[in-house]
């Protein structure tokens, strides 16, 4: 475009890139923060209903997904370390593993949601309208929060795949890996949010 672009390469500032990513993560945290606020307020108002509703969720499925996300979080971190050490092969394997795990997470989620839909529980369904306030709110929040989280998984996967291509093309290398680092940070964010979602949705009873 202009000769600006040329200069951008001269002035590569990794710290700026990273700071930018962190700031973006802050906004994501507060985005979910708004939802956690709503959750806590409704939970405080209808503790019993929330308790009963949460029994409807399968702790097993939730646990499996938690484990999947934790492992995937480690695998991106491994991938980053591998790139820093120049081991691109391992880095790529680890990235693919992460993506595969993300896929497994989504499949799991699909079955979980699918079961709910099957029972007629989905936003706007007849059954939902019949529930009383606490139950209704619980399931609304459940679908909304896990849905938004799933959306972030998809975005994260896209970022990771881009990183993969960049490693392939040697655009992400041992002394220039900001893209992977930022994608990994984003992925950890997804994990971080799930760490709070899991007990709040599945366990607290």
């Amino acid at each position, binding site marked *: 475009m202009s000769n600006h672009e040329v200069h951008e390469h001269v002035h590569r500032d990794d710290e700026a890139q990273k*700071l930018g990513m962190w*700031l973006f993560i802050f906004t994501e945290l507060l985005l979910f923060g708004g*939802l956690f606020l709503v959750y806590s307020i*409704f939970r405080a108002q209808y503790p019993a209903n929330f308790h009963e509703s949460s029994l409807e969720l399968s702790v097993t499925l939730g646990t499996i997904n938690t484990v999947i996300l934790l492992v995937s979080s480690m695998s991106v971190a491994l991938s980053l370390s591998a790139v820093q050490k120049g081991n691109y092969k391992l880095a790529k394997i680890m990235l693919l593993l992460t993506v595969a795990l993300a896929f497994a997470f989504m499949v799991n989620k699909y079955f979980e949601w699918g079961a709910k839909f099957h029972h007629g529980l989905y*936003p706007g369904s007849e059954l939902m309208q019949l529930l009383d306030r606490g139950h209704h709110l619980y399931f609304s929040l459940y679908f909304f929060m896990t849905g938004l989280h799933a959306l972030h998984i998809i975005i994260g996967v896209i970022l990771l795949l881009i990183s993969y291509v960049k490693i392939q093309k040697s655009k992400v290398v041992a002394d220039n890996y900001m893209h992977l680092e930022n994608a990994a940070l984003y992925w950890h964010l997804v994990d971080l949010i799930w760490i709070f979602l899991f007990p709040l949705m599945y366990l607290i009873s």
Partner: protein
Amino acid sequence: MSKEKETPKYESYLDYQGKYKGIWGWVFSTDHKRIALLYLYAITAFFFVGAIIGLMMRIELSAPGETIVKAQTYNGLFTVHGVIMIFMVVIPGLSAVFGNFLLPLQIGAKDVAFPKLNRFTWWILMVGSVMAILTQFLRQGPPDTGWTFYAPYSTTTGTSVILATSAAFVLGFASILTGLNFIVTIHRMRAPGMKFFNMPLFPWAIYAASWIQLLATPIVGITLVMLIFERVFGIGFFDPQLGGDPILFQHLFWIYSHPAVYIMILPAMGVITEIIPTFCQQKIYGYRAIAISSLAIAGVGFLVWGHHMYTSGMSDQARWFFSLLTFIVAVPSAIKVFNWILTMYKGSIDLKPPFLYALFFIFLFIIGGTTGLILGSVATNVQVHDTAFVVAHFHYIIFGGMGFAFFAGIHFWFPKMYGRMYNFKRANWGAVLLFIGFNLLYFPQFIIGFQGMPRRYYDYLPEFQWAQVISTFGGFLLFIALIIMVVNLVLGAKRGEIATANPWKGSTLEWMVPSPPPLENFDEEPVVKKNPYEYD
């Protein structure tokens, strides 16, 4: 000024010919200065649209009953007026225009940290704005909820609320990215030797405002998405008929929208803080106090949102708590006002148009701010909440504050932006007329507000008419004044005198480069050794 001055030898950012020609050279530019001007033109256009709608409301209100539009139309008008003015004019306004233009110049950087993101942000703003304006033309009719989108009315009305809230969401995204860009720029790209505490005060203000943009906007974003889902899927977050809680919506909305008012005013204060020392040729009084008070306003400003909800049925504990914090957030603003005025002491004051605007700003800001105190006190709020008094308060502080600061800033940096000068006499006339028109327009609203005239009223009792008529008259005066101002500026940009690099004898870095600045701002990276605001 000097006639013998030739066309500059360097290639300024205005003349630069890149890969793209004509308008595309602007739209695809990543140069912060060009993007700033893009924002300026877009926002001026939006302001024009919003202002015309404002005038239409004024005409409608000049007599009780139906005057020019139907009730439903009126309800759509004030909603769209609010949405345009808040989300498309004042929130991006100062920070995107002057922040983009000046932040890199003032801290001695070549550009912002992420120039491509910066360009992208402008596009997002345009997409959001197009969406907002489209709401006018949909089959369902313009949204009629007020810019606050209070549930459950907003979840049930038949009008195009979904598109309007989506637009606000997209615009919020632009706001977040601008803030992010500026924070990184300030942290990473200051010229060598420039510490935080010898940055000029405008970047300080931008810095504080950027943090609010970054941290508060996501919350309103998610709230609006919840509202959309509530409408589409019948999820009941806010509609009591579905089990939700309408007061929770108000909490979430104001958690963002109160801090948002400081997004508007902080950069405005920053502009004034640059103008006053320059025209007094006096060191700014209490540099540190002003810098830190910006952060204090941003910080405490996060915690006072409840003052919009005193009568909503909040718990009594929350009412006094929010009232107390509201009063505390007024103190840092007061500090700034005192420091500005003391800066004039023993200076050598040159009453040029930017300074005149700055003086008007201080006067109007004090009125707006102190009426904010009346609103912040619970007892008096009960009397004036949701009346014309509130309308007067925020027009005084937004239009009188941020608007006048914008005009001051335009007149101040105009020679830097365009390399030319406007006509001072016309500018002064414009300013004075603007000031008179403004006060005629909004002051009567305080009085009828206290007497109980509610806001968002299409129709009203005849006893309030006298004030409405004065207001409408003031509105037209204001309109004329703004035309004078704009014409003067446009003429100046086209064929004003060529301006020198430093027409006002400013001391910050932007005045050290030629006017208009060259493409890459500084030929060599400036090294900063002294504090800003040292005049000699």
